[in-house]
């Protein structure tokens, strides 16, 4: 591990254990005006969303743009979008951990926090989109005097379990990784923050006993989280794949969605890391090398996604099923062609720029591309959900249009507010970069007695 590039790069630099602790602890200093502006922006977006939601509860979902037969629309689009975002986090923290890829250490904490908050956001949408929101708990298998149980054959129930588990596990994972770092910060902090970290640090001292159990637990959590990541978005994809709607009903969906999720997730990580790195002056800890690796991951998953697009359309044509063909024809050339092509260009073409090292190592370039990928991935879900329903070829008579309303946009804006509010609060109060794990990839301090650690 000692010869992983980050360490190699770091060994000659001034990056020592102490430097790392200080650098990261500094990010928790009292925030400036800019931070408060951002936070205010997030909170006001959230307020807009809440107001829209209240109207929705009072007057019914009709305020949103739904039109028969488009019974799922922007809310479910946002749900899938946010769940997707949530995926890179655990991927980086768990899967790359098992693969022992050292470069993850600098970025995984941000990714993990993002995961947790994204799931928190995603989880809201199914509750918002159901017709009688106040009965959401009927989906939970709780013993009741009516002796009713939910239907475990329904993909929506699978969803509930998958998302629930994912939220719990990724939260646990985040908190666990935080403990040694909180302890580290505790030992350099002063004032009320010291109290905060003294409590949240759970009295961690880094004894050999603690590390012995910690490392094991972390390993097994990672081992559990890895299949979980893959399962969650597969289950989300089955919400669609289990139905008979042409454009939904495809065996391809699970891998396709998982790849798409990681793709959008990594893009979102880049989108978030670039400003953090700039604002918190972490250039020496989050190096260009890290971004390049993220970009490579982005390119790889992006290629899988583009490949899936091709497969979908090829199978629709080659399979010769008239409904499939009609569905995909409508998708490409129907009244929603613009959405489909936005999706194809942003997700299919743009990532090809990442073949070039120049682009991969150009932070601004990456930032821009990542934004476009986010937009593209949102549209991918929009196309899959709305367009497939609007032009469903089974019942020609009911083919319909769809226009989102203020209620759709308002609540979507609210979800972004909600997400960024939590994220901003997190990065200012807890180490947004793992202290202990960054140290792990550094060369440990040794005496110059020619002795080398065995």
């Amino acid at each position, binding site marked *: 591990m000692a010869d992983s590039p980050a360490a190699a790069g770091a060994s000659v630099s001034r990056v020592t254990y102490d430097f790392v602790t200080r650098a990261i602890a500094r990010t928790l200093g009292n925030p400036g005006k800019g931070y408060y502006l951002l936070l205010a922006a997030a909170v006001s977006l959230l307020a807009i969303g809440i107001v829209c939601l209240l109207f929705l509860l009072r*007057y*019914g*979902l*009709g305020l949103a*743009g*739904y*039109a*028969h*037969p*488009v*019974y*799922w629309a922007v809310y479910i689009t946002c749900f899938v979008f946010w769940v997707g975002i949530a995926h890179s986090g655990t991927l980086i923290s768990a899967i790359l951990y098992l693969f022992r890829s050292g470069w993850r250490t600098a970025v995984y904490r941000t990714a993990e926090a993002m995961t947790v908050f994204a799931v928190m956001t995603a989880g809201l949408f*199914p509750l918002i*989109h*159901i*017709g*009688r*929101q*106040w*009965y*959401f708990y*009927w*989906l939970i298998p709780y013993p009741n005097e009516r002796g*009713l*149980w*939910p*239907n475990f*054959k*329904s*993909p*929506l*129930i699978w969803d*509930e379990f998958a998302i629930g588990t994912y939220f719990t596990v990724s939260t646990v994972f985040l908190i666990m990784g935080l403990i040694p770092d909180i302890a580290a910060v505790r030992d350099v902090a002063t004032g009320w923050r010291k109290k905060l970290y003294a409590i949240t640090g759970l009295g961690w001292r880094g004894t050999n006993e603690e590390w012995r159990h910690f490392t094991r637990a972390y390993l097994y959590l990672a081992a559990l989280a890895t299949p979980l990541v893959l399962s969650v978005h597969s289950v989300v994809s089955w*919400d669609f794949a*289990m*139905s*008979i*709607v042409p454009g939904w009903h495809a065996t391809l969906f699970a891998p396709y969605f998982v790849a798409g999720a990681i793709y959008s997730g990594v893009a979102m990580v880049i989108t978030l890391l670039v400003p953090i790195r700039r604002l918190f002056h972490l250039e020496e800890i989050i190096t260009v090398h890290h971004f390049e690796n993220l970009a490579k991951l982005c390119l790889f998953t992006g290629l899988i996604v583009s490949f899936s697009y091709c497969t979908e359309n090829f199978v629709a044509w080659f399979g010769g099923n*008239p409904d499939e063909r*009609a569905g995909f024809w409508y998708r490409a050339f129907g009244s929603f062609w613009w959405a489909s092509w936005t999706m194809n260009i942003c997700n299919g073409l743009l990532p090809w720029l990442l073949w070039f090292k120049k682009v991969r190592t150009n932070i601004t370039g990456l930032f821009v591309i990542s934004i476009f990928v986010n937009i593209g991935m949102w549209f991918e879900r929009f196309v899959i959900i709305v367009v497939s*329903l609007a032009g*469903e*070829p*089974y*019942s*020609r*008579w*009911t*083919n*319909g*249009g769809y226009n989102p309303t203020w209620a759709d946009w308002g609540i979507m804006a609210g979800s972004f507010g909600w997400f960024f509010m939590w994220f901003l609060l997190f990065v200012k109060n807890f180490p947004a970069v793992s202290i202990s794990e960054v140290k792990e990839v550094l060369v440990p301090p040794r005496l110059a007695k020619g002795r080398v650690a065995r």
Partner: protein
Amino acid sequence: MGDGMNRRRFLKVLGVAGGGAAALSGCGIGPEPTEKLIPYVVPPEGQTPGIATYYASTCRECAAGCGIQVKVREGRALKIEGNPASPVNRGRLCARGQAALQGLYNPDRVTGPMRRNAAGQLEPVSWDDAITTLRSKAAEARDRGLVFVTGLESGSFGDLVDEWTKEAGGRHVTCEPFGFEALREGNRLAFGDASVPTYDFAAAGYILSFGADFMETWLSPVGFQNAFTRAHSFESGTSSGMAKFVYVGPRMSQTALSADEWLPVTPGTEGLLALAMAQVIVRQRLATVPADAARLSLPAPASVAQVVGLDAGTIERLAREFAAAGAGLAVAGGMAAHYANGAEIVAAVNILNYVAGSVGRTVKFGADLAHGSGAAGSHRELSDLTADMAAGNVAVLLVHGANPLYALGGAFAQAWAKVPFKVSFSSYLDETAAGADLVLPDHHPLEQWNDSRPRAGVYALQQPAMLPVFDGTLQTGDVLLRAAGKPGSFKTYLQGKWEALYQRLAGARGPGFDQWWTDALQRGGVYGDAPVRSVRLATAAAGVAAAAPSFTGDAVAVVFPHPALHDGRGANKPWLQELPDPVSKLTWHGWVEVHPDTAAKWQLASGDVLLVKSAAGGVNAPVWITPSVRPGVVALPTGQGHTAYGRHAQNRSFKAFDLLDVEANEYGGRTHVVGVTVAKTTDHRRLASTEGTGRQLGEDVAPVLSLERARGLHAGEHAIEEEGVPEYARAAEEGWAEAQHEKASLGNYAGEHPRWAMAIDVGKCTGCSACVTACYAENNVATVGEDLVVRGREMAWLRIERYFRPVARGAAVSAVTTPMLCQQCGNAPCEPVCPVFAAYHTTDGLNGQIYNRCVGTRYCSNNCPYKVRVFNWHNYAEADGVWDAFPAPLTWQLNPDVTVREKGVMEKCTFCVQRIRGAQNAARMEDRTVRDGEIVPACAQTCPSDAIVFGDLNDPRSRVAQLAEDPRGYHVLARLNTKPGVTYLAPVRAGAAEEA
């Protein structure tokens, strides 16, 4: 019935409480407010709480006089169904008949008498004052001009009005906007007999309609449609086949949707075509032509082909087909009878019938349909009246059952101002009532005594089904009697008339009047047949030329009656407003039909607002581009554009009557086809259409069979190949399905159960949409209004899909209509995806939908390939809510057997499960099994063409089980392996190219 009245009064109290409960049960979030219901202490005689009573009566929504049975529960009329005893409609009913309830419970009814005060405002007065005023005004008006305008009143009330006006020294004028002057005049020209015959569609071997919309607005639509489908439907196995139906006219009406062939001829040349066909028949001796036909001077096909717009060959073919059919039937009416030369067109068609030998076989004089009787009046009377009024020769004008200020508009409106005192007996504040000085609200027909004579020999009774909804209304008959200072009520007057009738019909042999009267009440009237009168060709017939009229301007405008709103009287009923027009599928607003070629010429897109101007006036109409109208012709429906007439009718799009001249034409009718100039405006509106894609695009929703193909079918074979599963996988699939089924038959599912199913003969479906309204009425389906329809939120559980069929470029299009409702699939895709089991499979094979378990994830609808599930986007039952679909007292109509759904809930058709359970309970009480045909869903019950059959698929002897084996049978989207419970029978079109 005095005690009966008391009983009803008592029940009415319950009615209110029950109604309130039904309305409240739908509202808001969380627990429903508890309602205090008054229980029966002493149950009234013959009343069981929760058990409906049916009162026979007569429908007064149009003059056809269909017999009806009104379902009454706890004192409230809940549903109207056809009266099987009535020969007029044989137990069937149309959408307008179904919607009569919304007239009864209309929230905008006038609740009491009103008089215009000094300030010019209508203010409430007592009945005594009102009647005194009426008496004095009538007295003043004696020989200074008193005119009583009524709708078509063929019964005792009409007689009373006649007598009353005679005594008051005035005259009685009938206002029937779509009158039948041309028909009477045409018959007079051809046969010297100005009455209207009956047309025996059932006996016809070939049906040729010259503009006669006999299945929507012409004479007796329900009866005719029922008869038509019996002649036109195809019975598999029989080689006999079906009567071909050809429709001639510039516009494809709802009636024309069922046509095997549609001939969009030049407007006004229908008569020429008929004469030319007659010529061919005479010349080629295709039928045993009566001798006196010799003196007719008939044009040769070649000479008229150019003008008519058909080639001579086609005309000859039609003639041959018509004659060959033996009992051919040609009818002229509708718009063809509203040209300037309408009478001659009718005469020409009479001649065609005559030479083909149809008169007496399919065209039977002697029945004298009410429309034909003098009571129907003529438009000339109205235009004369208009002149008199303008000249100040009318002192008092009384209007009942008509809305001349709306229908006549223009000149009449100006003349109206000149009449010093105007009285309206309208139940609603329509244009006429709003402009009257005295408003004396009549009972709704469902609240009053009356009778009518739809045709000779048929005497239909009308009895109150419930106490008046509003205490303030009073039957006009009683008002007139009181005003005239006569003793007794209108009921006694009516019974007097019926005494006389009893003497005439039964006389001494009868069971005694009281017995006879009670029987009549129970059966809904006295039904007999009139002897057929034979007619000979009149001398005038020789002179019938039916020359084509000339039109000026850019296009010819056809102002046709809206099938649901008719002349506008239906416009205040949300059911009819939201009922998609059978052809255009547009709701809540008017439109102008333009052919694609014409639209291209004028650079129009659907929804563009077009300014259509005639000599009489102009309207701004949104364009609906359709192949169902002849190029160069524009068609506009009447019915909208009210300036009054309640919340549902007021200020909706335009009034097509504005295009028409009030002046009567030569035969005393009103010309409805006029030359117009058009100008595109910058306006545009989103059409409130329920149509997505109007073509099947190779889908197999309604595959059409040619007659040849259908004839060739033998029992056991299937015309439409259904391959749910590929051959190689079938065995595996079946084995698997069997195993699944075994695992699925647990608990309640174990053992034998019925499987409720439907068979729908698409060939019989005419698209009339009566079933749709019946479904609204039976299942408390909410209406959502124009804005939400535009946003695809209509709640219909049952919709009629109208597909235009692909034809060669330039050829006249043909269409097919098919009802689409929940298919109650055996393997329902909607069920397994519901997370809370709100959608589940009942033991008897229905796709149950548990409204109060539904949380509204809407996955079921996404997964339904038929898209027959609808969602409550808002709370349509919230009293005074933004989207309140049942403003009081419309709540009284809500069916207590069906939940009123709240917002956020998915709803759908369940084959009227409340009726199924009702029948099962009844059977259990009598300790027997449910009989086949005992359960009739609302749609099947009302269907005028008997296209829908319901029953148990697991009972091999049931009708539905047998129809399911019909060679024409198919299942929509069977390839998805959903195992639908609805079997459709493919429509057969004579001379149709095979589709699917």
